[in-house]
């Protein structure tokens, strides 16, 4: 069963009067439980692809389906709703809210969901912080944590609302190799334990080794898709 699907997806960017193609007709389906890496050199279209998967952008042509939603037909607020309910994000530079503690950062998407009261949220957040191994850092602010610890908070934040899939844009780019491996192990562990689908972009061969599905793209086209 696919969680997100592209059908002949095209994305062009306007640079001045020129139209520059970023994606040239992508057909791709991400299945539930995938641990998929999107790999390719800089400028190959990885980030554009993740943006389309993440409902952060709409395709210029073709279609992107998230569950039954056709992304192109959705309003900005509906897209926000889809992101809120279905998608978790992990960013290259962690992107935690600096004025909030680790606990509050992880709680943030649950507050946006407006489904649970403070007590239920607290339980979920503490469980998730324990899962990623930083329960004792719950009261620390991002500035009081290492890069690896911050990325663990970001993973907890992405997973806490049990999304259909998690998008991670070069999640190990800003941390050292050893911590990078730890982070990838943690993502694999969460993928296996919770069954969460992960889609991450990278150009690091060592990171690609962790992927169970490797989608290579070049010049905005899928070059290979190996399982």
């Amino acid at each position, binding site marked *: 069963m696919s969680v997100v699907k592209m059908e002949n997806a095209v994305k062009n960017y306007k640079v001045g009067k020129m139209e520059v193609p970023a994606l040239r007709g992508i057909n791709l389906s991400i299945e539930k439980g995938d641990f998929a890496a999107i790999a390719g050199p800089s400028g190959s279209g990885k980030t554009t692809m993740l*943006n389309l998967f*993440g409902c*952060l*952008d709409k395709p210029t042509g073709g279609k992107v389906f998230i569950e039954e939603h056709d992304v192109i037909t959705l309003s*900005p*607020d509906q897209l*926000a*709703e889809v*992101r*809120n*309910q279905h*998608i978790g*994000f992990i*960013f290259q530079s962690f*992107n935690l*809210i*600096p*004025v*909030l503690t680790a606990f*509050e950062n992880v709680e*943030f*998407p649950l*507050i*946006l*969901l407006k489904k649970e009261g403070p007590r239920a949220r607290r339980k979920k957040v503490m469980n998730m912080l324990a899962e990623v191994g930083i329960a004792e850092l719950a009261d620390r602010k991002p500035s009081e944590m290492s890069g690896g610890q911050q990325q663990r908070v970001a993973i907890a*934040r992405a997973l806490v609302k049990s999304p259909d899939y998690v998008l991670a844009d070069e999640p190990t780019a800003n941390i050292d190799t050893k911590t990078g491996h730890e982070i990838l192990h943690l993502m694999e562990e969460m993928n296996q334990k919770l069954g969460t689908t992960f889609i991450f972009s990278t150009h690091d061969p060592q990171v690609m080794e962790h992927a169970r599905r490797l989608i290579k793209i070049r010049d905005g086209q899928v070059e290979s898709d190996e399982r």
Partner: protein
Amino acid sequence: MFKLALRNVLRNKRRSFLTGLSIAFAVMIVIFLWTFVSGILVGMFNNYVTNSVGHIRVLNTDYLKREMMLPLSATVPDYQRLINTLEQDQSVKLATGRIKFGVLMDIKGKNKPVLGIGIDPQREEAVLGLSQKMVSGKVLAAGTSETIVGIGLAKELGLKIGDTLTVITQTAHGSLSGLNLKIAGIFSLGIASIDNRTFYLSLGQAQQLLDMDGRVTEVFILIKDPDKAVQVAAGIGKTLPAGLTAVPWQANGFLYYMMTIIKNLYGAIYAFILLLASFTILNTMFMAVMERTREIGMMKALGMKEGEIGRLITLEALILGTMASLIGAAGGTLLAYYVSTVGIDYTAAFKQIRDIEIPLAYVYRGEFSWLTILVGFLLGILFSVLASIFPARRAAKLDAAEAMKE
């Protein structure tokens, strides 16, 4: 959301402090000015009302036409009965007769126009409060041939308590008449135009001097609700005999328009001050949005809707505006209290303009009102929130993917 907004406000403490300071200062100035100007307006109104136009006056229609000349031939006859009738009206607080007449006095070879006012001392106590305004001597007593003189006039004429003031003037019928009045007291109403050129005598003495037995030049009326003077005057007017008219204070164009103009002018000044201060909020919120572009992009990526982002920024401005307005209102309350109790003394300035006709006081006091403070406080908040609308819209409309590239 509130916690996040509050922490965002405290994120750059120095900037928030400086922004808050400008809002607080603006709120304080607005409250102070509002209190002060209201005090001047109320003072001016009260002075004008008590000394001149009343809430309503019953006049002879001919007198009204030529009031500047103080014509003694156009009077209100049988005033005592009129007062009795008026005081049965529920909306009337007080009615009393007055006779105003002009006298030329000889001061060191120069003629000086002086205003004599015949009053009922007992009734007028509730209007003019002369017992509180005596600088020396005693208050005017009814039925005596005494007078009390304004402090400026007494100085100019070199008059002391116990001296005799000889008044020579024309009667209502045009013949000459004179009266010796013993100076019982010297008063200061704190209004240059009255203190420098007015003396009071009892109504009976004035009637005798001017040959106006049973008549007055005006029946002066105070009512319970001054704002209803026009309606009350219309009601009174219907009951008056032919030749008499009831004139509400609003008919005095100068007073009415001056008050309206001052109110509007200062309204514009308050808005301008707050507008200037709100530019600092505008600037601060724009800077905050620009600095946090990436963070805002991330929050949108996490599923925050445009409206929620906009509300977050507005909430930050609301928190900052409320804290600043609270401080401003506290400072404004202290200033308002000072200016309404101690006041500001303009005696020195008035030495230069002794004979102006506007009944201005020497010392101005503000009109302390919690409502003014509340409105000043709320306006501070309102302007802060309004100023955040543009930055909030900008933040709300940021493209999440683009914003995260920043």
